[in-house]
């Protein structure tokens, strides 16, 4: 019945079939997830630079929105995307180790300021955790959500470990960690200006305590010195939180 099929249709049918094959290949290989992640982030970073590095044009937030929309539009499951994106995710480990370089270069000032830094670290981390648990509880969030919120100021791999220990959902915590970093990086300039905190060591340390790696990335853009103190705060917060938060948050969660 289809003997009279025009040649053009046959050719386009073959081409469509090939395209479908290409899509089947690409959607199953890590190549696409990795490439798209880098391209989208590059685009987001160019937009960030064009805005004069405006804190509200955060490149992580822009990238997550664009990539999320792309996955949704192509009905690609997150697990498939992560097959490719995991290569980027993996670099969080070596990057954490690399923080020792700016730290070493600021060591003289670190030694002089250890007490103010220790105080800021303990107060900042506990205040953020207690506020997150308290507000979540007061507004009726479920216990799993509250437990996922509790460690959100800590850098992602550590926060996920803490969440797991206190009954939260590690992958939800990862998302909340990123949200916290974006919020902290976007609001720090306004909050610290309002408090009349001008010293770059204090500004950097507060950013690293409250907004981990995303805050540290923001601080490095402002100055190497601010970045070093933010990185230091992020590392120390991770150490302190890994030990203290399961106890403190676990104890608070037992009460609610």
């Amino acid at each position, binding site marked *: 019945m289809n003997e009279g099929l025009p040649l053009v249709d046959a050719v386009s049918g073959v081409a469509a079939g090939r395209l479908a094959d290409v899509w089947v290949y690409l959607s199953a290989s890590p190549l696409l997830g990795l490439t798209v*992640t880098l391209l989208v*982030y590059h685009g987001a*970073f160019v937009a960030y630079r064009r805005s004069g590095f405006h804190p509200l044009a955060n*490149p*992580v*937030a822009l990238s*997550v929105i664009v990539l*999320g929309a792309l*996955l*949704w539009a192509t009905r690609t499951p*997150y697990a498939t*995307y992560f097959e490719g*994106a995991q290569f980027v*995710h993996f*670099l969080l*480990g*070596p990057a954490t*180790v*690399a923080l*020792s*370089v700016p730290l070493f270069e600021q060591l003289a*000032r670190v030694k002089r*300021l250890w*007490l103010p830094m220790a105080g800021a670290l303990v107060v*900042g981390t506990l*205040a953020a955790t207690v506020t997150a648990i308290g*507000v*979540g509880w007061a*507004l009726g*969030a479920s216990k799993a959500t509250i437990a996922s*919120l509790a460690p959100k100021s800590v850098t*992602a*791999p*550590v926060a996920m*470990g803490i969440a797991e*220990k206190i009954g939260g959902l590690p*992958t*939800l915590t*990862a998302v*909340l*960690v*990123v949200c*916290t970093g974006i*919020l902290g990086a976007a609001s720090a300039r306004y*909050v*610290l200006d309002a408090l*009349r*905190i001008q*010293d770059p060591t*204090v500004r950097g*340390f507060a950013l690293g*305590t409250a*907004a981990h*790696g*995303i805050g*540290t990335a923001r601080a490095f853009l402002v100055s190497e010195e601010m*970045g070093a103190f933010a*990185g230091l705060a992020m590392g120390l917060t991770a*150490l302190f939180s890994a*030990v203290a938060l399961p106890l403190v948050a676990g104890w608070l969660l037992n009460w609610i």
Partner: protein
Amino acid sequence: MIPALATLLVFQLVGEALVRTLAVPVPGPVVGMALLLLTLVLRPALLAAIKPTAQTLLQHLSLLFVPAGVGVMLHLQRLGDEAFAIGVALVLSTLVGLASAALTMAWLMKRVAPSADKGAP
């Protein structure tokens, strides 16, 4: 670049191995960072070899958080159901964390080491 990258990975590896052997609840890369810092203090000559690679990695630190952030897709249902509580908790606790850390540090710097740093102009 390759020796530098290998150095970072070796320290991460040692960190992970230590953490697992001693069963301490600290992340491996953080221990790796502390060990590399100690090594740099003992052998400052190492700095020149790893600095360029370390700086490149740290300049693009934001990128490394993107894959975890896209994981928001897995939790749209819960985030939608509890959007108000989660949103308010996120914003308030981030602001409280930032402000309390900054104020505590500034206050302690004035009390403990008044002349240690330039301080606020």
